Every structure is written in structure tokens, then in C-alpha cells.
């Protein structure tokens, strides 16, 4: 079981503040993010990556295998690059072909296994996989940058630094599947392995190896090496849509553990009574880096660009004043408290900054972010107790007026065509009778209204009145997992799925959020992360990467 780190509840920001969609949609990656913790583990073991297979045509089509020993096991990334006609290239889940496909394999594949993966991986959802296949992924080229980089290398030049900075990746993944999808290994088969215990660790390892493959592929086609400082800034892009959003609702234990770890980390650094000079300097250095990072973060979406520009302006004022707080007692607590009137974007950037310099104080929290057992429900025996508990923990839901059509205008569903989550308009689209159960607030209110005046056992109530099982389950979880519930109406017209996506992606370690609508976003992963030959050179200083052209 995970080590349990008892927080000091009074020092934590309450769920009523933290678990709101708009704040979750303002989060930045931290040193607790899964890519960061994975890199530290890889670096601690001084992992070496080899490339036993490189069967690639001159124009970059073929297959490759990368292998590494990690935590007492050997893993291999099988990468397959195919010639994709431009008209078939789309990041949407409805795509049926991609520029490249990947499998993270348990061990080193022999020729027969390599042929099996080569036949199946490019088919993705239409393929079939085994328990030796741990992660399945695919990626499309950033055609613009990939072509530019390879053409420059072929001409004996390095690529244009402005293009490297503005795009930031050679390929972007459009899915990274784990945990049993399409026959690959269930998560629990590898969940106890050293290095892969953390949430999404196998997926993050896959992404990091894919990033390396994209560098190798560009150098192969270009016929010359890329400068390391350019490669370091070339991460892996990712397009993420609605498919990711329901996870946070259907995994309340994980959501709780992630948020609790982050809030506990913040509480710990706020409790530091006095900063040493080197710590003060580090905070100031990172605040400056945040300014530079924001300056390099531009997106095409007008509204989001405006939001970034406001954050830049606000942060400039914040950065200028940070030094005033650092000589005080409990400096970081005072500094964080001074943010209370600032925007949520500023506040959450400050949270991320304050955690960053204090690895010795917070990194152990990464061990608490998994869910090794499953939900441990509290038993609620009678309906009077249940009513009190609902009033105590779900008052936020009771405040929503579900008689107003706008408060349940949207509905989540699974599409027949792709069996993927979608979001529809209840009043304009068919299918709401098949709604997916993400309407937790509405179900809680419905349960509350259905509770009998006369006390009875919850078991009897469940038998007599159907349709409230999920709401009762959530109520049984909330006492133990107080950060496990998004405290907003997920079917209201005001629900923006992009907020859920950003929260989850920030825990992955994503940066440079580039929303394309309120339902999908592009991001960059591994930007600034160590290259495969750099794990022994200090692998942990890449929070909010900045490109030094």
C-alpha cells in the first residue's frame, strides 16, 4: 500500500477552493508531475537506452526498436513509421491511419514478435495486442516543422530557431493507450514494478522514447545531426480531446490522491519559517524563468492568447514583488497569501513555482499519487446519516438549480462509431436517454430529494428506490477522498471540458497548452527534458522550459 502522508488539514487549501473547474483549468505542471518523477527515477538508475533495430528507408519509413533496463525489467519501444498521404492525416479520434505507431513492449521483441507488432500497431484500435504490449500509441508529424528540419539538415544547416521555438515538436501523439485497451496488458500487471508504480508511468516512458525516435528520424532523413540544444527543446506534441475528460470523474481516488499530494506539497513549503539565501535565489530565478516561458507561449486562439497576455502582464507585477516577501518569516506562506486577489491563473502558477525548489521536502509525495487498492468506501448505515453527510460535503451541488434547463443542457455519451466519449446538447441532439453517468452533482441532488423523512437503512432504501446507487457510492467515498470530486456541474451549459483536460495534462507534465476549442487542446510533453544520453547529467531542472535560441 502507498505510504500515507498525513497532511495538516488546516494548512491545506480546501476542496471547495481547489476542486472548481475554472481553477483546475488554470493548473501548471509541477515537480510532482508524472514525467518529472519518471525522469528522476530514470536518472537515479542512470538508465541507458540502446537502439538494437533501425530498419528505415532513406525517406524515413520502416521500423526501429529502443531498449532499456529499468527497475529490474527490460522494456522496448517498437516504432513504426509509415508513408501517410496528407489527406489521411488528422489528429481526430476518427482517424484510421497515422504517420507513426508505437508499442512499449515488455522485454525485447524477437523477430516474430516484432513482425506481430509491425502488423498490428499501425492499425491501432483495429489491431489486437497481448499482455506483452504495455502501451499503444500513434503520432502524426508536424509536417511544417519536420519538413523544415530535414530540408535544413540535408542542406548542411541547422533549422531556424524561431520555428523550433514556436512549434516545439516534430510529431504529436493523438492517443497513448494503456491499461488493457485492445488487449494490451492491464495496468495492475506492471503496477508493482519499480519505476512504473506511479500513475501513467509506462505511458510517460513511452512518450519520452517517442520523442527520442522523432529526433533520430529527422536526423536520419536529414542525413546530419541536430544540435543538442535544439533537440532538447523539441518535445512531443499531443492532441487531446474529450476522451480524456471523464477519467477524472470515473477515478475519484486517483483524482483525490493527485490533488492531495499537490496541496500537501504547497502546505509543506508554506510552513517553511525562514529561507536560506540559496533558496531565495532559486525562487527568484524560477520566477524569472516563468516570465520567459510565458513570453514564449503563443497560441492561435484569440481568447486564449488574450488570457496568456493578461497572465504575462499580471505575472510581471508579481515577479517584481516576490523579493519583498522572501526575507520575512514564513515567506512563502505570506507570498501565497498575497496572491488571494490575483487571478486563478496567477495563483496556480505561483503554486507550481513555490513547490519547484523544494524537492527534498515534497518529492516523497509522488509515492502517494497512485491507487493500489481501489476505493475504500465508508459504510453509511441509515438515510438520516446519509442526509447529514450530503449536506456537509455536497452543499456545492445543492446550490445548483437543476430545474433550470441550462443546468443540464449538455450530456455526455459514448459514440457508437468510435466508442469514445462525446458531449452533446440535450435539446438539439438525440441520445440523451443513453447519457453517461458523469452528472454527479445532479445525481447527488436527486438522491438528497429522494431520501425518506422516516429514517431507514441505506440498504432498504437502495432496494426500495432504484437509480441512486452511484450517488450513494460517491457519498461513501467523499469522507476519505475529499479531493476526489469536481465541485461543479458537469452537464451545465457552463461546463468547459478543456478545464478537465488541462488539470489532467498538468499532472502528466504538459506545458504550452494550445486550446483549439473548449473540447480539445494541443500540448507539449517532454520539452526541455533530458535527452537519452543526458540522464547522468542532472535530469530535474526543466520546469516550464525556456528556449535559449
Amino acid at each position, binding site marked *: 500500500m502507498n505510504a500515507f502522508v498525513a497532511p495538516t488539514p488546516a494548512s491545506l487549501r480546501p476542496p471547495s477552493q481547489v476542486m472548481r473547474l475554472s481553477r483546475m483549468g488554470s493548473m501548471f505542471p509541477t515537480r510532482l508531475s508524472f514525467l518529472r518523477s519518471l525522469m528522476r527515477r530514470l536518472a537515479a538508475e542512470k538508465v541507458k537506452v540502446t537502439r538494437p533495430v533501425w530498419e528505415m528507408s532513406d525517406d524515413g519509413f520502416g521500423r526501429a526498436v529502443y531498449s532499456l533496463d529499468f527497475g529490474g525489467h527490460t522494456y522496448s519501444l517498437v516504432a513504426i513509421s509509415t508513408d501517410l498521404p*496528407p*489527406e489521411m*492525416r*488528422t*489528429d*481526430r*479520434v*476518427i482517424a484510421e491511419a497515422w504517420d507513426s505507431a508505437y508499442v512499449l513492449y515488455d522485454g525485447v521483441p524477437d523477430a516474430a514478435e516484432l513482425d506481430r507488432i509491425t502488423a498490428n500497431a499501425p492499425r491501432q484500435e483495429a489491431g489486437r495486442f497481448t*499482455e506483452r504490449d504495455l502501451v499503444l500509441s500513434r503520432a*502524426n508529424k*508536424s*509536417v*511544417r516543422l519536420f519538413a523544415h528540419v530535414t530540408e535544413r539538415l540535408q542542406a548542411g544547416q541547422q533549422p531556424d530557431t524561431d520555428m523550433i521555438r514556436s512549434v516545439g515538436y516534430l510529431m504529436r501523439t493523438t492517443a497513448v493507450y494503456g*491499461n*488493457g*485497451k*485492445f*488487449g494490451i*496488458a*492491464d*495496468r*495492475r*500487471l506492471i503496477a508493482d514494478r519499480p519505476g512504473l508504480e506511479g500513475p501513467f508511468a509506462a505511458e510517460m516512458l513511452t512518450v519520452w522514447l517517442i520523442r527520442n525516435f522523432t529526433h533520430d528520424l529527422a536526423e536520419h532523413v536529414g542525413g546530419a545531426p541536430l544540435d543538442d540544444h535544439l533537440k532538447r527543446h523539441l518535445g512531443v506534441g499531443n*492532441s487531446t*480531446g*474529450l*476522451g480524456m475528460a471523464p477519467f477524472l470523474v470515473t477515478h475519484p481516488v486517483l483524482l483525490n490522491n493527485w490533488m492531495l499530494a499537490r496541496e500537501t506539497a504547497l502546505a509543506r513549503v508554506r510552513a517553511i519559517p525562514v529561507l536560506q539565501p540559496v533558496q531565495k535565489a532559486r525562487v527568484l530565478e524560477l520566477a524569472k524563468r516563468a516570465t520567459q516561458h510565458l513570453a514564449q507561449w503563443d497560441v492561435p486562439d484569440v481568447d486564449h492568447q488574450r488570457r496568456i497576455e493578461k497572465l504575462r502582464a499580471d505575472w510581471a507585477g508579481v515577479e517584481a514583488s516576490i523579493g519583498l516577501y522572501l526575507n520575512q518569516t514564513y515567506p512563502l506562506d505570506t507570498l501565497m497569501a498575497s496572491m488571494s486577489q490575483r487571478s486563478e491563473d496567477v495563483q496556480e502558477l505561483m503554486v507550481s513555482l513555490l513547490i519547484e525548489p523544494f524537492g527534498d521536502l515534497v518529492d516523497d509525495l509522488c509515492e502517494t499519487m497512485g491507487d*493500489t487498492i*481501489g*476505493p*475504500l468506501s465508508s*459504510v*453509511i448505515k441509515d438515510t438520516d446519516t446519509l442526509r447529514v453527510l450530503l449536506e456537509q460535503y455536497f452543499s456545492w451541488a445543492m446550490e445548483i438549480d437543476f430545474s433550470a434547463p441550462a443546468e443540464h443542457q449538455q450530456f455526455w*455519451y*459514448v*459514440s*457508437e*462509431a468510435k*466508442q469514445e466519449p*462525446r*458531449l*452533446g446538447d440535450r435539446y438539439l*441532439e*438525440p*441520445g440523451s436517454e*443513453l447519457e453517461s*453517468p458523469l452528472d454527479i452533482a445532479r445525481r447527488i441532488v436527486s438522491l438528497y430529494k429522494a431520501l425518506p423523512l422516516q429514517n431507514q*437503512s441505506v*440498504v432498504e432504501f437502495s*432496494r426500495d428506490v*432504484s*437509480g441512486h*446507487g*452511484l450517488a*450513494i457510492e460517491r457519498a461513501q467515498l467523499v469522507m476519505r477522498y475529499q479531493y476526489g470530486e469536481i465541485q461543479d456541474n458537469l452537464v451545465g451549459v457552463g461546463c468547459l*471540458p478543456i478545464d478537465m483536460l488541462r488539470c489532467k495534462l498538468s499532472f502528466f507534465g504538459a506545458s504550452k497548452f494550445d486550446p*483549439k*476549442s473548449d*473540447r*480539445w487542446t494541443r500540448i507539449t510533453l517532454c520539452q526541455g527534458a533530458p535527452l537519452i544520453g543526458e540522464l547522468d547529467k542532472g535530469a530535474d531542472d526543466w520546469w516550464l522550459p525556456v528556449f535559449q535560441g
Partner: protein
Amino acid sequence: MNGYSFTEVEGVLTKAARGSGAGVAHAAKFAKAAALALASDEGADLVNAALADLPNGVIRDHAIWLQRDLADAGEGTVMFPIGDALWVGYIDSLPYKSVETPTGKIAVYMDVFAKPVRPPRVFISDKNMAKWQVLAAKTYVPETEQSRLGGAGAGLTDND
């Protein structure tokens, strides 16, 4: 028989149960138990019978019985009768240590957390998987032009 991941089987059976009329919570509990039960010879027959009985039958009753006995026990040890593979699957899905006793019962120690033990593969006949996928499909919403364009929110091409 084809091998499937536990997650795949749990997923299709959750939807199959919902598509057959089970509530969300009951469907999820059933799917966990059923995926374990499928390791036994009688498992598939029990699963099919349970799905056929919906919206009544063991998918509803087992969840309620389990809840009742756990509520009565508090944090002590609960003694459950040994039943068929599906019932045992319900008990083995709990996050607590459980052992068979010499008196023919299953003791569940609610103060000892334990991970449910699951096989690496679940083997299912094509006929049964096809049957469950048909039931699961009752929870899917057919595509319309509007949902295709806007449901996932993305644009049509991404060639930059």
C-alpha cells in the same frame, strides 16, 4: 476462445449490464465480479443468466446483500456463505483480505486491505463476446453529422 485483458472484459460487461437495464453502480460491481467468475467453467453461463434476469436477479441482489452485510459488520470480520463463482467474484472484488474457512464460509477481514487477485488474461468464446458487445452497444449513441463534427470538438484536418 480468445484472450482479453481484464479491463476489456470489465468494460464490455459493465456496458452490457447497463444496456440490459442495470443501474450504473450495480453494473460496475457485476462486471468486476463477472470478469473473475469467467475463470471458472461455470462462469460464462452464470454471467449470461445474470444478464438475462435484468433488471432483477442477482446483479441487483448480490450488490444489495453485499452492502447489507458489510454495513452490519462495521470494521470487523464478515462471514459470507460460499456460493457460485459469480457470488465469490463479488466477494473477491472487495479490497479486503478474504479466506475460505473450514466451516465452508468466506471470511472477509475488513481491517486488512488487499488487492483483488486477477488473471492476466480472461478467455471468452467469440459467441459470448459478440453477445455482450451487442448488449453493450445499447448504451452507445448513434452518430449524427452534428455529433461527428462537434461531439469531440476537433477540426477536420491537422496538417500544420
